[in-house]
């Protein structure tokens, strides 16, 4: 089912445009800042690694989340949108196989999203700003090797973070009549979480929101990695609870409903 999902979803024009837009944002940012190379335009212009780290900071959480919410809700709801779900069931494809295939397709989408972004950002940064050690304002530098490791670790952390909001969008796509509704609710959740995250008085609520932990990867560029384990645990728990709930509801629901 994974290969079928990848064939039907990731190779469609909408998905390719989404990845293209993601890459385009990075290239445009690099070209725009090209004249300020060497730190004249701020830390991002010191090196390819600085540019990549700044890019991650810009995209995370809302813009990355938006891309994955789109892909997740489409993967979850497209069979229902097209009417092909009934023909999958009579092939026969079980609900467990269907949900698992879609979740793995979501996982591939998250990896691709981050990989495309990091690849294009590093390449653009290399061309525009050059390969130099990672520069931190008012502090010591990180070697290029250490910074590269931090970029990869941060990328891995962001993938897991995207998987949590992607699972929410996927689950809504599976359960709601149309993927557009799933996308709307997922985006509302994403934006609402980002807004709530700034309201200190709501700490008890914020602590269970996956978005609250998304920017913890920044500590990797400050010589640490504190809080990443908790962040990963919250993302994994969110994805597990959401997908288990979606499957339980689907299993009890009449397929014709």
């Amino acid at each position, binding site marked *: *089912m994974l*290969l*079928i999902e990848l*064939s*039907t979803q990731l190779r*469609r*024009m909408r998905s390719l445009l989404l990845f293209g837009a993601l890459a385009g944002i990075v290239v445009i940012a690099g070209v725009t800042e090209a004249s300020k190379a060497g730190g004249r335009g701020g830390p991002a212009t010191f090196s390819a690694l600085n540019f990549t780290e700044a890019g991650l900071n810009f995209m995370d959480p809302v813009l990355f989340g938006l891309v994955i919410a789109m892909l997740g809700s489409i993967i979850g709801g497209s069979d229902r949108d*097209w*009417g*092909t779900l*009934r*023909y*999958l*069931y*009579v*092939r*026969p*494809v*079980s*609900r467990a196989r269907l949900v698992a295939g879609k979740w793995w397709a979501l996982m591939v989408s998250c990896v691709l999203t981050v990989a495309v972004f990091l690849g294009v950002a590093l390449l653009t940064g290399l061309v525009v700003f050059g390969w130099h050690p990672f520069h931190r304002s008012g502090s010591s530098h990180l070697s290029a090797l250490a910074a590269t490791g931090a970029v990869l670790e941060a990328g891995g952390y962001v993938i897991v973070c995207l998987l949590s909001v992607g699972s929410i969008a996927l689950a809504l796509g599976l359960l709601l009549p149309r993927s557009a509704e799933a996308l709307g609710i997922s985006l509302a959740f994403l934006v609402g979480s980002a807004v709530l995250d700034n309201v200190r008085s709501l700490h008890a609520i914020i602590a269970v929101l996956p978005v609250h932990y998304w920017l913890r990867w920044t500590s990797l560029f400050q010589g640490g990695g504190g809080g990443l384990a908790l962040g990963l645990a919250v993302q994994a728990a969110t994805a597990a609870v959401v997908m288990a709930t979606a499957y339980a509801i689907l299993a009890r629901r*009449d*397929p*014709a409903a």
Partner: protein
Amino acid sequence: MIDTVAVAAHGLSKSYGRRRAIEGVSFEVERGQICGLLGPNGAGKTTTMRVLVGLSRPDGGTARLLGEPSRLAAEVLARVGVAIDGPAFIPHLSGRRNLELAWRAGSRRWPPPALDASLELAGLGEALDRKVKGYSMGMRQRLMLAQAFMGAPEVLILDEPANGLDPGEVRALRQHLRRLAAGGAAILISSHLLAEIELLATHCVVMNEGAVITAGSLEDLLGAGAYEFDVDDAHRAEQALAAVDGVESVGTHGEQLVVSAPGRTVTELNQALVMAGVGVGAVRSRRSLEEVFLGLVERNNAAD
């Protein structure tokens, strides 16, 4: 031993909220039979078909396909060809790619055993490699039929398969279904094209308001050996036919003479009339399925 009953519905009931869709639906379709599932809109035909292939969970009763209980994604469905609720495809992929993905979704190796025959029936030619979003309604319908037939299924559940097909395509479909039935497939087909069902089906199930009102062989339903004659002298014709061996009853219906004579051909009866000096203007060998169907539904509605 192979069970001859391929499709079995026993006491199926299903409600959507407060609305009863079907109630106590029972019938069987054996291998080699082509069974027409007939009924007016809202009679419960599609709900019955959905329950049979596991796309709807019955509130009561049991559905079996090829002897196995039918439920959502039951393994036995791999031996069943289904076309239900109209065609549905991934619009940005070609017809061929759609068929391939649908087949592979069942964890089976491409190509399926009856692909060539199914594609020949679909007759899509080069359009098969074009995106489905550019297909006409008829092309989508033919691709859906190819999808249902490509696995050489032992059972076919077809909901309005002739929708959007031109007369030539309907005829090709009829011939294909007859070949499949002759090869031992059991076919359950719902359609509003009663003339088509009359040409094709060996058996019929008639539903109205969620219940089966009659089921059996088409011959029994239409009344084998029932004829209508337009004659110039009804009294003399009645006397002449009553004297023929095998004539069970002779009566008039409006201006027509209605004769029930199982085992007698229309030629023999016509000959008896001519010998008695009766002029025969026209003869219809039996009642049409349309007449029987409308009569059954009207009587059922009146009884309610």
